[in-house]
């Protein structure tokens, strides 16, 4: 595989995303409102619980976790399903199918550029703000490197899930409902809206094994050095879970896609 074409796609994606500066600012503003809501919600929860530590997390812990989860969500969020359903309806998908590389690879690398931009424009600023406000509550060390590795894995897991849902939409030709269901499940079970520590013990055991956790919870846990992720023995199972889901979803997604694309009938004609 020629790496040059992948870099070219990333480069184009970066340039395209930068065309929409305003969008980034709107996202930051919307986040601010959301985070104010989250702040008061969790403040109420902590105030009424009567203790400072709930499920092993202090109020500050929870806030840092959720703020970074939001930033991570903006950075990892993909619109594969939306974009694909639009290009199926307009028939434009045929032009993407006729690129001399696999469609999945082409799609993934077309999005990579916007992830780079989002990472720099939303995640890093948020991270810096959190650092300043909390006076350095986040440890700066090897955990940053592990976090980056884990984020890349999260990206791949997330992309594979998106692609599988997008493939389902090939059959249904309607997207909205399916996508909403998917987003809700991911947000709930990945730890993006409620830290997984707050789940009941039994549910936690199941959620721990699902792929959704690999997207938000694991990178954040590693970054914030929770659950023994400072030790190799704590890190390895997390990376293991991410890697396993990467592989499973990649293989399943590829097979499902290749099977489905043969059935595709592009509109018009």
């Amino acid at each position, binding site marked *: 595989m020629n790496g040059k074409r992948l870099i*070219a796609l990333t480069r184009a994606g970066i340039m*395209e995303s930068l065309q929409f500066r305003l969008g980034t600012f709107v996202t930051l503003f919307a986040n601010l409102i959301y985070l104010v809501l989250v702040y008061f919600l969790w403040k109420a929860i902590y105030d009424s619980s009567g203790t400072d530590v709930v499920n092993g997390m202090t109020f500050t812990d929870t806030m840092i976790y959720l703020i970074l989860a939001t930033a991570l969500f903006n950075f990892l969020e993909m619109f594969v399903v939306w974009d694909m359903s639009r290009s199926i309806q307009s*028939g434009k998908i*045929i032009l993407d199918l006729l*690129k*001399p*590389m696999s469609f999945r690879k082409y799609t993934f690398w077309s999005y990579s550029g916007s992830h780079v931009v989002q990472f720099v424009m939303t995640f890093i600023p948020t991270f810096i703000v959190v650092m300043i406000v909390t006076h350095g509550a986040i440890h700066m060390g090897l955990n940053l490197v592990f976090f980056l590795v884990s984020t890349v894995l999260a990206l791949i897991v997330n992309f594979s899930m998106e692609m599988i849902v997008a493939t389902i939409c090939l059959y249904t030709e309607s997207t909205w409902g399916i996508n909403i269901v998917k987003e809700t499940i991911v947000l709930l079970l990945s730890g993006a809206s409620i830290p997984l520590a707050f789940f009941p013990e039994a549910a936690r055991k199941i959620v721990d094994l699902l792929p959704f956790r690999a997207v938000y919870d694991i990178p954040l846990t590693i970054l914030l050095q929770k659950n023994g992720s400072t030790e190799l023995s704590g890190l390895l199972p997390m990376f293991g879970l991410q890697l396993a889901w990467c592989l499973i979803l990649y293989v399943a997604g590829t097979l499902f896609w290749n099977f489905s694309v*043969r059935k595709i*009938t592009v509109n018009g004609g």
Partner: protein
Amino acid sequence: MENAIVMKNVCKDFKVLNRHEGLKGSIRDLFSRDYKTISAVKDVSLEIKRGEIIGYLGPNGAGKSTTIKMMTGVLEPSSGEIMVNGVVPYKERTKNSENIGVVFGQRSQLWWSLPLIESFRLLRDIYMVPQKEYEDMIELYRSLVDIEPILHKPVRQMSLGQRTLSDILAAFLHNPAIVFLDEPTIGLDVSMKDKIRSLISGLNSEKNTTVILTTHDMGDVDALCKRIVIIDKGSKIYDNDIEHLKSYFGNYRTLKMRLSDDNWVEEVIDESKQDIMKIIMERQKEQKIKDLKLEEISTEEVIKKIYEGASV
């Protein structure tokens, strides 16, 4: 390799749900297993040589796009064989797409918000075109059309004509053996159509690219195609030179007569069936004919006749 495309007895069937009308019908459709088969392409055989420009014509819904989608490998034929550049397209779609270029009427493969030159660079990398060849190609483009004003313009700011031009250039960029142009001049003004036609014929003669052109504009056909393939209701009904076309479905000519009331009357005459002199004589019995003209029929009128005749 003499033939760019070979199709042998290609058929394509679609299975569609039998839809029922009204709310009740719509609800019934949710559980219906009542499919009917539609044959979009029936037993089409075709051989296209390298460097040819083929006009691929047919009324709306005749199966043109379906055929092209099969040639590009997006659709798999229900039966029959297709070879494009020695490759079976639907089996090796990726490999096939290295050797073809496509322009689909209103859809653009260019990167919407980027200047055209960035799309070109991106396509160069995606198709792995060596830098030297890429530069030669851009040089060739410069000699054929004035690309300077559009090269640094974002695609979203372009007029339809500029965008179509850019899309055609993008399709030829990796010097493919075959380029499919699906209604490239749709919605363009006269001068832009002309520019695009001369661009296509220029690229075809410089690079010996095979061009499959579908269009409803007979001006495109007259300007570009030596050979025409007409398909209707999924079957091939004509495949020959443009010169033969006029005589193939009868020797058509237009007879124009100015009668005593000074009005011109037109009649399209099939010389193989009707005798022109006889028609004139009969007219003369009723009215005085002041003036006479006999004109060759235009391609457009022949095609119109064929479409109408074939769909009766």
